[in-house]
């Protein structure tokens, strides 16, 4: 398979430009919400018991008395300098907190996506090739349950069954058992770092703690993925080119796994960025329940006390994540499908 470099690079460049534009838009929306939608931001941020001096200080600091566009300019400057405000509830700068919690969320999200791919794709393929069979029905059950489940239900049920009844997994929350020290930080992902440093006990502990929450998170989108793969496969299997492939004398196996599968990956890859969005959203609940010290839990705790700067910071980070995922999906798509590169 030949990938012609020039077409691909131009494609990537265009997508990056678009992504920056979208990011810009999102930042503006969050800015708008925090400044304009609330009548008196300074008072809200200072807290209910703040002195007039504190409120005045805030007003000056954030240029709240200036016209909107000026405010937006300073807002952008602050953002780019890593000044995302201070969280009233924790007293910590938002940017620092989020950076601390980010690796945990990354690890969880990546694990969930990997699970989704590893389980969802085979499930969808088998459902399509054995249409109306047992696997097909299983696929439907899984997808319906996943789509209709409130995120906390799956998480709580998993905890109940695996922690308390079956006692299969260690029952301390968080990413590691209490007596295990975290591995040396390279990526911030405990599982990866412990492998890289050969730290076996840390790896086992990290993995044990990772499984349930990532499965709970993956459950939400597993079904969607398998259904999509199933639908794409079915479409591919009834297409004209599959008819030609059969006429050429290719074995059923080759037709399905070499050709039909690749052709049915277009929609799932496109949807993957959507699933990343769902996953990030779901992490807010899942991380809370499993005491996973990530950005999602940070956001949940902040939301409880109506801490706007913290939640806004989370929004920006998560949106960045979705934009990256979109970009990655588009690039992957261009590699898989040569027709995309021409657009």
């Amino acid at each position, binding site marked *: 398979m030949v990938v012609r470099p020039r077409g691909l690079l131009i494609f990537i460049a265009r997508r990056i430009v678009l992504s920056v534009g979208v990011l810009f838009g999102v930042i503006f929306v969050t800015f708008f919400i925090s400044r304009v*939608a609330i009548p008196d931001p300074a008072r809200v941020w200072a807290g209910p018991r703040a002195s007039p001096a504190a409120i005045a200080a805030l007003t000056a600091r954030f240029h709240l008395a200036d016209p909107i566009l000026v405010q937006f300019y300073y807002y952008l400057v602050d953002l780019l300098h890593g000044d995302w405000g201070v969280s009233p509830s924790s007293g910590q700068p938002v940017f620092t907190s989020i950076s601390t919690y980010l690796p945990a969320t990354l690890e969880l999200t990546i694990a969930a996506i990997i699970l989704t791919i590893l389980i969802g794709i085979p499930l969808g393929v088998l459902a399509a090739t054995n249409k109306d069979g047992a696997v097909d029905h299983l696929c439907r059950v899984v997808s319906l349950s996943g789509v209709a489940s409130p995120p906390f239900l799956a998480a709580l049920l998993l905890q109940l069954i695996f922690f308390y009844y079956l006692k299969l997994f260690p029952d301390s929350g968080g990413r590691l058992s209490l007596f295990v020290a975290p591995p040396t930080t390279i990526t911030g992902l405990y599982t990866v770092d412990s492998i890289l440093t050969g730290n076996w006990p840390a790896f086992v502990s990290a993995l044990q703690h990772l499984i349930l929450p990532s499965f709970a998170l993956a459950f939400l989108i597993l079904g969607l993925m398998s259904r999509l793969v199933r639908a794409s496969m079915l479409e591919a299997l009834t297409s004209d080119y599959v008819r030609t492939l059969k006429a050429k004398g290719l074995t059923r196996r080759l037709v399905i796994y070499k050709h039909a599968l690749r052709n049915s990956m277009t929609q799932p890859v496109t949807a993957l960025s959507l699933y990343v969005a769902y996953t990030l959203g779901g992490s807010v609940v899942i991380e809370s329940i499993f005491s996973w010290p990530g950005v999602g839990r940070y956001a949940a705790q902040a939301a409880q006390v109506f801490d706007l700067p913290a939640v806004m910071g989370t929004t920006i980070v998560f949106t960045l994540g979705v934009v990256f995922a979109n970009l990655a999906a588009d690039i992957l798509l261009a590699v898989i499908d040569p027709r995309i590169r021409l657009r």
Partner: protein
Amino acid sequence: MGISIDKREISVILTILRRDKLSVFGIAVAAAFIATSFAVVIFGRSLVPYDPTEVNMMASFQAPSLQHLFGTDNLGRDVFSRCVIAAPIDAEIGFSIVVISVLIGTVLGSCSGYIGGKVDETFMRITDVFIAVPTLVLAVVVAVALGPGVEHVIEANLVGWWPVYARLARAGALSLKESQFIEAAKVAGISRFRIILKHILPNNISPILVYATLDIGNAILYASVLSYLGLGAQPPQAEWGRMVYDGQVYLVNAWWISIIPGLVIFAVALAFNLLGDALRDAFDPRYRK
């Protein structure tokens, strides 16, 4: 593709809906949910066996039994009664979000798609922005900004919800734009607005209807998550998501306090999903056997 609905189609759809067992379940539960919500609004407290707000420490932590179908919570309140009483809140939130998003999104999307050109381009970029933010996170941030309360939950979700319908409507408008009878209408000199109103919108209904039905389940899920996080309905008002959160602490010893409201949410969301699925199959010409 947009297909307009006529009487014959409706009977075909109903036949198909009746045939699939799961969709019957979906219709039944969805109908029960809506009926219960209305009943609660009309009859209030008298509908349920126990007072949903009455604290009775003697009766606390009772497992589900014939007396208390869903058991009692940490304050001795009957979980079943609380679940029933909480129904209209999520019904209101769910339906409001979807209905208003459909209205706003469909109108804006149809216009944008039909008008095309720079207007359409700009509109697409705008929807891109909203779709780029995970919907839940967007809803949370807006709800936090606006403060507690059910109306704020609805508004918060609307922000992230309408773009999807706008996209759907736009796609439909784009494909209808090229069709014969639209050409004829244009030639006849009918104004753009009338074309959109009388021809594009009605023909777009079925995919939007299908998606909206599925979406009500989603909306209820989001409403419950926001309540779980402490936004939206505030205690002592009973709300399913809130009940799950309050009952979490007691998960090991009294699982029913949090799990059962969670299951109720699941059942209702599932029902609307099944309903939406069945509708989609009913509208799809390939499935009509």
